[in-house]
């Protein structure tokens, strides 16, 4: 049984449809080509550039039963990066890649001839496809190419150029959103003491963010993001010594990060002493 493959490429999107159903591939091929034509017309208004057509044919190596190998290409002069191919795979014998310049109507005729079918509808389909093809305008287009099934082509050079440009001119900036609730809490205590910052942040993480335990890293992340401040281990140790903060034991034995929690004494200190 013959297999048919229809491939479509637009920018970095590649669509491939493989089937043994000739009728459906004919139908889809026409629909996609017509849509591509419409897209090209709308997309290329005002551009007025032309490119040379490139048309190539590549042999396909598959395993079907028919000895003949038929391939053809569809050349569109639509948008620069839309390519569509429809081909019948017949297989095994390797032939030197012929350079066939053909249109969809010829492909349909060839398929019908090989299959020995004699459909009146195919003539109408061919006429319709001819009309749509003749109306296509020339602009920044790439030719339709047959692609070897065993290899997938890498993205176009446009992608590489954009990637290179973005590397040279990075535009990413980390988010600098501040926590207003946290800031209000800190400002309400009217203090700039780092020890107080530790207790306030520990309270905030426990009560507002509902963390049962927190690490020094989390404390500093909150402080740095909002106040550009950081707490060192000596300050944390002082809080532990005064029983405001306690170390939560790692029962799993696999944690690499020490975690702490605010004690009741610490909460009282936050409420009354800051």
């Amino acid at each position, binding site marked *: *049984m013959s297999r048919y493959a229809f491939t*479509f490429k*637009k*920018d*970095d*999107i*590649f*669509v*491939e*449809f*493989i*089937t*043994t*159903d000739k009728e*459906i591939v004919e139908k*889809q091929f026409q*629909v*996609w080509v017509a*849509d*591509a034509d*419409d*897209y090209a017309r709308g*997309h290329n208004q005002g551009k007025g550039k032309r490119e040379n057509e490139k048309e190539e044919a590549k042999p396909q190596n598959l395993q079907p039963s028919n000895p003949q190998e038929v391939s053809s290409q569809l050349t569109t002069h639509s948008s620069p990066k839309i390519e569509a191919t429809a081909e019948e795979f017949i297989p095994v014998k390797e032939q030197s890649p012929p350079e066939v310049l053909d249109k969809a109507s010829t492909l349909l005729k060839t398929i019908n001839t090989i299959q020995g079918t004699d459909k009146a509808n195919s003539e109408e389909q061919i006429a319709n496809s001819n009309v749509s093809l003749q109306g296509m305008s020339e602009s920044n287009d790439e030719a339709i190419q047959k692609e070897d099934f065993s290899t*997938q082509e890498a*993205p176009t050079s446009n992608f590489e150029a954009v990637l290179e440009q973005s590397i040279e001119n990075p535009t990413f900036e980390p988010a600098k959103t501040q926590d207003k609730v946290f800031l209000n809490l800190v400002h309400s205590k009217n203090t700039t003491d780092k020890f107080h910052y530790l207790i306030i942040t520990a309270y905030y993480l426990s009560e507002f963010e509902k963390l049962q335990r927190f690490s020094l890293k989390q404390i500093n992340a909150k402080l740095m993001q909002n106040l550009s401040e950081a707490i060192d281990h000596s300050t944390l140790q002082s809080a532990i010594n005064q029983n405001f903060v306690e170390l939560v034991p790692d029962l799993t034995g696999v944690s690499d990060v020490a975690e702490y929690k605010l004690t009741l004494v610490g909460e009282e200190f936050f409420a009354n002493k800051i």
Partner: protein
Amino acid sequence: MLTLDKGRKIMQHEYVFKMKKGDIEIELKSDDIEFVEQQLNKWREDIMQKG
């Protein structure tokens, strides 16, 4: 592929729909032509609308 339906051999076609965008690749295999056509139509509209 050939299948039997009430003792008669009928031709059942296979349909494979593949789409690749960047690193993402999806593949759909089915013998349900209606479903595959729906997907083809949907993705065609989607692709063509992206300018």
